[in-house]
C-alpha cells in the first residue's frame, strides 16, 4: 500500500483559535481510516483542508505524491476527493438521478437536460458499486439511509476515489449503519477506494476501520492500527485522561407512578398527526427511554407532556394532577423540569448572561428579591457562581453571554438550571447532542444520580447507546405509535432497530 494522502506539518489558524496544530499524517491507499476526537478537536477542519474548503496557514498537503497548491472544493473534486457532509446537500423535490448528476448533467443537443440518460447513468453506477437505490424516486420520499447512499453515489459519479464521510451514522438506525459499513467494505475491497470516516462513536471505529487517528485540541495525539487498541484506550486518548464509562450504578426500586400519559394525540407544526394514541407511565426512581428515529413523534410527545404543544386528545397526569392543557409554567409547578430538545431556541436566552440563565424559574424566590420586586444581583450572582462550580461549567465566568459558549457548556447551563429545581419528574430530550465525550460522561452520571435519588425520568435521545445506557425500560415509537416496550437488559440494539422501523415482531404500524 502507498500513501494516498500526506499531511506534512499542517497548521490551521482562525482568529483566536489554533484549530490544527502541526499535524503530520499519512493515509494509505485502499484503507478505511477513522478520525476521532471530541467536538472542536479539529477533525472537521483537517478534512475541510483536504476537501479544499480551508487553506492551511502552514504546512503542505500531498495527494498521490503531488503537492496541493490550489485549495478549493472544485480542485479537490478534480483530484478525486469526495465528501459527504453530516447534513445532506440534496434537493428534496428532485429524483435520485437528478440529484446525482446535479452540476454535471447529461444534455440533449447540448442544452436540454436529458433525464433518461441521467437515470441510465445512475443505474450503471448503482450496478457497478452495488448501492441499491431507485433512480426515479424523489429524494424526499426515501429514507435517510438511502439519502446518504445518494450522497455517496453523487461523489462516485464525479469520479471520487477518496471518500470522506463526516459523522455518517449520526442519523442512521443500527440496521442502516450495518448496511453502510457493508457498502464501505465493498467499495474499498472491490474498487480500491480510500475512505476516511469522521466519528465519535468508538465501537464504529472498531467495527469498520483499519487504522485510527485520534485528535485532541487541534493536535494529532496518536495513530494506531485498530486491531491494537480498544474503545477504552481510544476514549482516554480523546479526552486526555481515563474515562470510566461503565460505572453507572443504578440503585433503588421504582416507586409510585409520576407521569401518566393516556391515549395522547398531538399534531406537528404543519398540523399533521405526529403522536397517535400514545399511552405510557413512568415511575419514581426509573428512567423510561424513548427509542425512535427522528421525526416519529418523540419531539411532539415530550412537548405535549411539558405543555409546550397543544394536546388534541388524551390526558397527561403529572404527580397525580391532570396536566392536560396547562401552560408550561403550571406544569412546572406540579413538579416537572424539562431539558428541551433544542437548547438554542428553547433552553436558553442566548444574549443573556450565564447568571441570568441559571436564575430563570427561581427569579421570584424570596432570597433573590428585596421588598418583593428589587432583584438582589449579588445574591443572584452568588447562587449562579455556586451552580457554575457544581456543574463544572467552563467558560469566562457567570457574566459570559451564553450564546458565545460551546454546545457542551451551554447544555451544562441548561442541565444545571433544570436539575437545580429538584423536581420529582424530569423530562430530558437529547441530553448530549453535540456534546463531547468528557461532558457526556458527566451528564450521564448526573442523570443516574437524579434517578437514584427517586426522580421519574422520561428520556428521549437520537443516540441509541445513550438510551440503552441510561434506561430501565425502553419504548419504541414509529410514526407516532408505540411499537414495543422492553426492559433495557432484555433486548439488543439490533432488535430495537426493527421496532424503530415498524418491522418488529407484532408491530402494529
Amino acid at each position: 500500500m502507498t500513501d494516498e494522502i500526506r499531511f506534512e506539518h499542517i497548521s490551521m489558524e482562525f482568529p483566536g483559535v489554533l484549530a490544527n496544530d502541526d499535524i503530520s499524517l499519512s493515509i494509505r491507499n485502499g484503507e478505511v481510516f477513522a478520525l476521532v476526537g471530541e467536538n472542536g478537536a479539529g477533525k472537521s477542519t483537517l478534512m475541510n483542508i483536504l476537501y479544499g474548503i480551508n487553506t492551511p496557514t502552514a504546512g503542505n498537503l500531498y495527494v498521490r505524491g503531488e503537492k496541493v497548491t490550489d485549495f478549493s472544493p472544485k480542485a479537490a473534486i478534480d483530484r478525486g476527493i469526495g465528501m459527504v457532509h453530516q447534513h445532506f446537500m440534496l434537493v428534496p423535490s428532485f429524483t435520485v438521478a437528478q440529484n446525482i448528476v446535479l452540476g454535471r448533467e447529461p444534455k440533449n443537443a447540448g442544452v436540454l437536460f436529458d433525464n433518461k440518460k441521467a437515470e441510465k447513468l445512475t443505474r450503471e453506477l448503482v450496478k457497478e458499486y452495488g448501492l441499491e437505490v431507485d433512480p426515479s424516486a424523489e429524494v424526499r420520499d426515501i429514507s435517510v439511509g438511502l439519502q446518504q447512499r445518494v450522497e455517496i453515489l453523487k461523489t462516485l459519479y464525479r469520479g471520487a476515489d477518496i471518500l470522506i464521510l463526516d459523522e455518517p451514522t449520526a442519523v442512521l438506525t443500527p440496521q442502516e449503519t450495518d448496511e453502510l459499513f457493508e457498502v464501505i467494505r465493498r467499495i474499498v475491497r472491490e474498487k480500491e477506494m480510500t475512505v476516511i470516516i469522521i466519528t465519535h462513536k468508538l465501537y464504529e471505529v472498531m467495527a469498520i476501520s483499519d487504522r485510527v487517528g485520534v485528535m485532541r485540541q487541534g493536535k494529532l495525539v496518536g495513530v494506531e492500527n485498530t486491531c491494537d487498541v480498544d474503545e477504552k484506550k481510544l476514549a482516554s486518548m480523546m479526552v486526555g485522561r481515563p474515562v470510566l464509562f461503565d460505572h453507572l450504578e443504578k440503585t433503588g426500586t421504582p416507586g409510585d407512578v409520576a407521569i401518566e400519559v393516556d391515549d395522547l394525540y398531538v399534531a406537528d407544526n404543519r398540523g399533521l398527526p405526529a403522536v397517535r394514541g400514545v399511552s405510557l407511565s413512568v415511575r419514581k426512581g426509573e428512567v423510561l427511554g424513548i427509542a425512535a428515529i427522528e421525526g416519529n413523534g418523540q419531539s411532539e410527545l415530550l412537548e405535549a407532556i411539558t405543555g409546550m404543544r397543544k394536546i388534541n386528545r388524551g390526558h397527561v397526569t403529572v404527580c397525580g394532577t391532570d396536566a392536560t392543557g396547562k401552560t408550561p409554567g403550571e406544569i412546572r409547578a406540579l413538579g416537572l423540569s424539562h431539558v428541551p430538545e433544542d437548547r438554542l431556541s428553547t433552553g436558553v436566552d442566548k444574549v443573556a448572561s450565564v447568571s441570568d440563565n441559571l436564575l430563570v424559574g427561581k427569579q421570584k424566590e424570596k432570597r433573590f428579591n428585596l421588598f418583593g420586586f428589587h432583584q438582589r444581583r449579588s445574591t443572584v450572582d452568588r447562587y449562579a457562581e455556586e451552580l457554575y462550580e457544581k456543574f463544572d461549567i467552563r467558560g469566562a465566568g457567570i457574566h459570559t453571554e451564553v450564546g458565545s459558549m460551546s454546545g457542551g457548556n451551554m447544555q451544562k447551563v441548561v442541565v444545571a438550571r433544570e436539575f437545580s429545581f429538584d423536581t420529582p419528574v424530569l423530562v430530558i430530550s437529547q441530553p448530549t447532542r453535540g456534546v463531547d465525550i468528557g461532558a457526556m460522561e458527566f451528564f450521564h452520571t448526573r442523570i443516574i444520580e437524579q434517578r437514584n435519588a427517586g426522580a421519574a425520568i422520561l428520556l428521549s435521545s437520537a443516540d441509541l447507546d445513550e438510551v440503552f445506557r441510561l434506561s430501565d425500560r425502553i419504548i419504541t415509537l414509529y410514526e407516532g405509535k408505540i411499537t414495543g416496550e422492553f426492559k433495557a437488559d432484555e433486548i439488543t440494539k439490533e432488535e430495537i432497530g426493527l421496532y424503530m422501523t415498524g418491522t418488529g415482531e407484532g408491530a402494529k404500524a
Partner: protein
Amino acid sequence: MKKRFDYGYLIALVISLSVALLIGAGIIAITGRSPLRAYGALIDGVFSSWRHIGDTLEYAMVLCLCGLACDVGSRAGIFNVGGEGQLLLGALVASRIGTLMDGVTPWLAIPCAILGAVAVGGFYAFIPGILKVKLKVNEVITTIMMNSIAVFLCVYFAKGPWKNSVNAEGIIVPEAYRFTTLIRSSNLSTAIIISAVLTFLVWYILQKTTKGYEMRLTGDNPRFARFAGIKADRLVIAAMVVSGMMCGLVGMFRVYGAERIFKTTAVSNEYYFEGLMVAMIAQYQPLPTIIISLIFAILKIGAMGMQSVGVPIQIYWILQTVVIFCMAGEKGIRAAIRKAREKRAAERDVLARREGGTANE
C-alpha cells in the same frame, strides 16, 4: 449586573455624531455659507438665552419620554410604533377633561386629566398588544394604521364638537390648570419634574427589578420565557399598555405645559417618531436614551437658531439621518474593532507558543 462600561457603543456614537456634523458642514459649505458660522449659530441658538435652554430641555423631555416608552415595549419584544396616536389621544382627552372640569380645583382636575390621558393611551396600545398575543397580528402594522385613525379623530374633535367656541382654534386648557412655567416665556414647565421621576422609575424597573428581568428574557426569546414558566403573553401586553400610558402622558404634558391649546399638529409634529429614532439609536437602553434625547434636542433647537444665518432647519433632519445611518453600522464598527484585536491576540499567542516550545495544556 457587573458589566464593564460599554466603550464600543460610546465610541460608535461619538464617531456617528462627528461624521454627521462633518457632512452637515459640507452641505452648508456647498450652499455657500460658512459651516463655522452656522455651527456657531447652532450653539448660540441653544445657549444664548434662558428661554432657548428651557425650550431645549422641554423638547429633550418629550423625546426622552417617547424614547423610554418605546424602550419599555421593545424590552418585552413588542415594537410600539403607535406612540404618536397614543400621545395625540392622550392630549385630546386631557384637554377635554380640562374644559369640562373648568372651575373645579386644580388639585382634582389635573389628576383627572392625567388619569384620562394615561387611560386612553394605555387602552389605545392594549388593542395592538392583545391582537399580537392572541392572533399573532404584527403590531407594527396595526399601530401604524391606528396612528392615522387617531390623527383624524383628533382633527374631528378639536375642530368639531369639542371646540371651546366658534372662534377657538382648538380645545383651550383653562388657565388655572396649566403647569407652572419654570423659565419665563419658554416651554419648560413643572412637567419636567414629573418626567424626571418617571424616567428614573422606568430605568429602575427595566434594569433593577425582577419584572424587568422577566421582560428582558421575554423580549430576547419568548419561547424560552414560556418554557421557563414566565407569563410571557401577559408581560407583552402589560409592556405595551405601559408604553401607551407613557405616550398618553406626554400628550397631556404637551397641552398642559407647553401648548396650552389642543391643535393636532402643534401638540405633536411626529415627535413620537423622533423619540423612536432616539430609542433605536440608544438600542432600547434607558441611559443612552436620556443622553441622546438631550443631544437631539440641542441639534433641533440649535437648527432653528441656524436659520438666522440662512441655514434652513432641514439641516437638522440631515444630521439626524446621518447619525441613525452610522449607528446602524455600529455593530459592524464594533465587530471590526474586535476582529483586529483578536487577530493581534492570536498572533501573539502563536508566537508565544513557538518560542515556549511545547504548549501548556
